[in-house]
């Protein structure tokens, strides 16, 4: 098994606060890996370092064996590392058609085309159509994203990330805030992600984590508490004390 995404001794501090402590994480090729941890454990900071929004103080990040620590956000996307966002960061006044069209154009290296109108390239159109239908967005493709039901917006979020044809996909709480009635579509979309895409799931929802992940890493206070298969993690007394206990209380 090859390693798709790896961090080596990652460190990040804000002032005197160590938010990421000596974090070494390996995500295997094709894995369904979940990163869990209580609130304030530093999950978002880890994501931001993986995607290049934040620069770690020390340590390295490797994508398929290549050091990407110094690469900018958009270069990592072109290298095959894509993400979804937890809170809604979609383009409110673009339509799903435009949003996905943008992502597909950029991936194909056609985003800088300033002379060609949108919609005139058949290869781009075909891919947009495929993504829209796969994520049940065809019927709403010309509506403004801000007017879509929340569940549809979450689907669009995943569709946009997939449009970049990632080999490693970071899913940041894909089902957060979705009403029960629309949840099924999201879970189905997550389950139907192609197997050759490595997925790192950052999630609060234990049902989703245990139904989806084949490996779980537990983050506490910025450091790795434990790591293993779901049943091992569920049995771990430390985890129960620190995380699952808290989740059960909530």
């Amino acid at each position, binding site marked *: 098994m090859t390693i798709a995404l790896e961090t080596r001794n990652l460190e990040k501090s804000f002032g005197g606060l160590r938010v990421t402590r000596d974090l070494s994480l390996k995500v295997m090729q094709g894995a369904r890996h979940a990163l869990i941890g209580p609130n304030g454990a530093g999950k978002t900071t880890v994501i931001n370092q993986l*995607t290049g*929004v934040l620069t770690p103080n020390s340590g390295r990040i490797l994508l398929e064996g290549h050091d990407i620590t110094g690469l*900018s*956000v*958009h270069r990592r*996307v*072109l290298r095959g590392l*894509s*993400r979804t*966002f937890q809170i809604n*960061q*979609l*383009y*409110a*006044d*673009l339509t799903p*058609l*435009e949003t996905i*069209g*943008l*992502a597909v*154009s*950029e*991936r194909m290296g*056609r*985003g*800088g*085309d*300033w*002379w*060609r*109108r*949108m*919609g*005139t390239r*058949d290869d781009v*159109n*075909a891919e*947009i*159509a495929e993504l*829209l*239908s796969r994520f049940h967005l*065809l019927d709403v*493709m*010309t509506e403004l994203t801000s007017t879509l039901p929340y569940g549809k917006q979450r689907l669009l979020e995943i569709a*946009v990330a997939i*449009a*970049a044809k990632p080999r490693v996909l970071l899913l940041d709480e894909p089902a957060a805030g979705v009403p029960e009635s629309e949840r099924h579509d999201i879970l189905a979309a997550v389950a139907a992600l192609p197997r050759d895409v490595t997925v790192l799931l950052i999630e609060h929802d234990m049902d989703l984590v245990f139904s989806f992940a084949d490996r779980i890493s537990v983050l506490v206070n910025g450091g790795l508490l434990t790591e293993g298969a779901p049943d091992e993690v569920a049995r771990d007394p430390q985890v129960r004390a620190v995380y699952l206990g808290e989740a059960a209380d909530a």
Partner: protein
Amino acid sequence: MTALSDVSTHAMASARCRISEVAFWVLALACAFLFPSRYLIMTDIVRLGLFALSLDLILGYAGIVSLGHAAFFGVGAYSAGLLALHGIINEPVIALVAAGLVAAVLGFLTSFLVIRGVDLTRLMVTLGIALLLEALAERFSDITGGTDGLQGIEMQPVLGLFAFDMFGRTGLFYSLVVLFILFLLARRVVHSPFGLSLRAIKNNPLRAAAIGVPVNRRLIAIYTLAAFYAGIAGALFTQTTALASLDVFSFERSADLMLVLVIGGTGYLYGGLIGAVVFKMLQELFQSITPQYWLFWIGLVLVVIVMVGRARIHRWVLFVPNLIIRQLAGRKAAVAVPESDAS
């Protein structure tokens, strides 16, 4: 596959030409024939419209605020003036493009300062660059003529065929053609994947990068293009008035431009053109009523526009036409200002 044809149809829908757009340009051309005594002010409006179009490209589409857009206008104006004065390029159209390119080079170089930082930084940097250029133009008076400006510019006929006349007829049609061509180009650009990526950057630069958009490169490109447009507007100014003085760089010029765009609205290309018409008309009107205090009224109009909101004003203005249409055709209101960004 119907989904595919749907996608391409809808994707191209926004770029399709609307009847209201054709009407707009027919009206513009008609004005040029209908009011032969008003060539000069109409030329003024066309130049201002082109200049505002330039600001709309960066402000309305990429979200870059600028209080120093006159920098590029001024560089274009002086370039065109110097080219003509020293007989380097005598043919106005070629000189126009050359002047635009000089401004574009300046735009490219300064874009690296502008793309860093947020709105306030950008305001200050753009303002600073314009002030700097104004001071330089004054300092190197042996080249620019200093406070006297460039004098004795003689323009050759456009394309060697159309000589500039004292009524400004050639100047108007020349400016109008240049505006139309550059407008079509801008329209093409904003409806391209490149234009879409600019809107995404304006909305949320971080998200745009996460989609794979090279944010800085796109901003540099559009800033350079906008500088080219502003340079052309400046060059038109020199070519149609046969003078270039220090006020081409002035802060008032940059600030007025912002007013024009606020009046007309950003992010749909026609805002700058409509704004230029309204601004100049208001200026004319207020100047004829109170020659000394017309700025007071412009200021008042501006405050009202910003406080009340343009979308609502459009509704009020279109209330009567819509009423008539409803009465006549018995259908829902058909008149609307082609605007996608109402706020």
